[in-house]
């Protein structure tokens, strides 16, 4: 399953719920305001870093760049993809679940 999360973990419980209910081995792609969840050094970062062995995390590069975070340090192991990479992730997984 590919999970997409588009909400800031500093504002809502969306990413937290996704990580609670996603099965180990799932991919989690952070898009839109969800990309703040990929930042190192925020109050939400530890919760993500703690699950790096359970999930493969991706973050959408164009959304990172839009928010001025292209040079901000991301949590180790999070892979940056573009929209083409987003398409590939959907194709590679059997289904997508959007956490809104």
């Amino acid at each position, binding site marked *: 399953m590919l999970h997409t999360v*588009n909400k800031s973990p500093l504002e809502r419980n969306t990413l937290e719920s996704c990580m609670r209910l996603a099965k180990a081995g799932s991919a989690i792609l952070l*898009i*839109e*305001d969800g990309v703040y969840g990929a930042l190192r050094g925020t109050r939400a970062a530890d919760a993500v870093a703690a699950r790096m062995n359970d999930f493969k995390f991706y973050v959408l590069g*164009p959304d990172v760049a839009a928010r001025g975070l292209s040079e901000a340090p991301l949590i180790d192991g999070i892979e940056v993809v*573009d*929209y*083409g990479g*987003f*398409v*590939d992730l*959907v*194709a590679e997984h059997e*289904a*997508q*679940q*959007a956490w*809104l």
Partner: protein
Amino acid sequence: MKFGILVNEGPFTHQASDSAYQFAKAALEKGHEIMRVFFYHDGVNNANKLSEPQADDRNLVELWGKLGEEHGVDLVVCVAAALRRGIKDDILAPGFRISGLGQLIEAGIVSDRLVVFGD
């Protein structure tokens, strides 16, 4: 691969429609098929042809309509959600059609993947 897309939000207010559009464009560039984009909830507002963004801003209604025409993408606006929100044939942008929620379920059945964008 054959994709269906669900868009739950209108243009501008949430990024959902932008993200869905960028996704659709990238998928087509990679040779995938978008069999249908279904617009539900406030997503029906993407079909309002009166939308007139500032000159230096993107025009999502036009972008969707062009994508539909150039790539044969079926752009379906949910009739129930649209009636509530005042999206009717009078103001329906070219490339869109109004139909029932069954078109969403069908997209889920027929496509290889249904991808959801919302708020």
